[in-house]
């Protein structure tokens, strides 16, 4: 008997507070879904990195002035072709274009400001809502070699 095919997509929506074990648990749940859709190792590394950076930015910058129990909302939608992830914080938002380019020579020795550029480098598409407190990112599965 042929094994029955799995679902053609999986979605998840969850809130998480600034608690490392809770964040790690949520990231792990999303990465388990990505693995079930057989994304290769390089893709999983890229998605894991972008997800960690997005959630970290939400707490470190978005929730800078909020109590630690203020929740960040994470949504994930995974199918065979792409992984879409949204991270929304409760902060005032920011203007992404104002972040200095950390790869310029004059910024190389500055310790901050690399999270967003890494997300942009590894994901296929990155968008923000007008307020700047919700990041939506998409990873397209690369063509098979």
């Amino acid at each position, binding site marked *: 008997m042929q094994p029955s095919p799995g679902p053609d997509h999986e979605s998840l929506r969850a809130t998480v507070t600034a608690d490392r074990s809770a964040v790690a648990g949520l990231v792990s749940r999303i990465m388990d879904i990505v693995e079930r859709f057989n994304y290769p190792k*390089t893709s999983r590394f890229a998605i894991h990195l972008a997800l*960690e*950076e997005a959630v970290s930015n939400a707490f470190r910058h978005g929730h800078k002035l909020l109590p630690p129990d203020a929740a960040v909302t994470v949504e994930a939608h995974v199918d065979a072709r792409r992984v879409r992830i949204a991270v929304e914080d409760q902060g005032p938002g920011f203007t992404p274009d104002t972040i200095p380019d*950390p790869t310029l020579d004059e910024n*190389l*020795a500055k*310790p901050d400001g690399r999270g967003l550029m890494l997300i942009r480098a590894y994901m296929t598409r990155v968008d923000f809502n007008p307020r700047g407190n919700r990041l939506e990112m998409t990873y397209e599965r690369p063509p098979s070699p």
Partner: protein
Amino acid sequence: MSPADSRLRVTHDDGVTLVEFVDRNILDEANIQQIGEEISSIIDSRDQPRLLISFANVDHLSSAALGTLITINNRIKTKGGQLRLANIDPQIKEVFAITRLNKLFSIHDDAPSAIASFTS
């Protein structure tokens, strides 16, 4: 801090301090801060410190960890010391390339080549 609480394994050999990570994932901001403080205290305890940080077995590294490495590098330079990085997984090495931090750090394939690169 007791060694049992440390996220690092630190050994000293022939004037070089070798730092290795206990964890496979360097993502937790509290851990990263602790790592930064531990390494800073090593740097502060030596004149012209020669530090080799090995990333063997490290699978994931956040931008906050990169920031801490930059702070460590700046601190070592202030003291006239030298920092070398080694044993970096190819995917993490790509992160260094994307951020152009491969231009800032002295990165080596393994510990022996990193140690050989220290100048006296």
